[in-house]
């Protein structure tokens, strides 16, 4: 089992708020458009984003992600940190690129294959 605390350590994340260090991380999602995150992220995901306005905290709470990682050197403002504390959202940042963070998270989770790529391949060849 991978926890928020293990991700923090393995990825060398900068900690801003850690409300639940034993929270299990079961997957990941990368994205900045909040409705996409709400439609596609799943409970327990590590959410990697460069979006850092206050609404990120509500979205994190409602989608029930395990932690938020602000990537690419994005730094949270005071308001965001305060909201994360109040709402119980684990909040971290990293100077690493989104691509690299996601690659590392995927590997740490055992490189799960949800079959989506094979499915897409089938769908495209069927359409040809």
């Amino acid at each position, binding site marked *: 089992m991978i926890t928020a605390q293990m991700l923090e350590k393995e990825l060398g994340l900068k900690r801003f708020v850690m409300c639940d260090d034993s929270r299990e991380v079961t997957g990941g999602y990368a994205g900045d458009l909040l409705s996409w995150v*709400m439609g596609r992220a799943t409970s327990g995901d590590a959410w990697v984003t460069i979006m850092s*306005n206050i*609404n990120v905290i*509500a979205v994190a*709470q*409602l989608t029930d992600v395990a932690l938020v990682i602000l990537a690419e050197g994005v730094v949270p403002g005071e308001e965001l940190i305060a909201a994360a504390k109040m709402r119980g959202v684990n909040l971290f940042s990293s100077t690493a690129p989104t691509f690299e963070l996601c690659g590392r998270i995927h590997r740490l989770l055992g490189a799960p294959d949800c079959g989506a790529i094979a499915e897409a391949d089938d769908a495209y060849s069927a359409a040809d």
Partner: protein
Amino acid sequence: MEQNEKLSFHFDVDGNDFTSAGEASVKVKKLMRQLGFSPELTRRVSIAMYEGEINMVIHANGGVADVYVDEDCLRVVLADEGPGIADIETAMQEGFSTAPDNIRALGFGAGMGLPNMKNYSDEMKIDSIVGQGTTIELKFKVN
């Protein structure tokens, strides 16, 4: 928030305060957990309601949200007196949005709000009159 005897909850959604948008949905999430609803249903209801709340703030200068808890069904009604939606079928399409640039810069305006509301609810009904407002009813089956 007021609770009436038939177990319903009423919220005012402030059209001027973008940063506090979502307060009603977060409260509903807490209430549902307290009432013993499953995390899965709670998540669907609160996300769909949040999208509705955000839409009323962005597109309609605020409105009201009511949640009705019945034995086998949970209903969320979002009502505003904004500009209304002229072409509901187009508005329902993934990616369609009239949100201005300053809203897009905040990560909203992807045109996925109404589709998310439809996907996460079991039934969705939109009533809208241009120049008068919009009412959206979301129904969620309880097992």
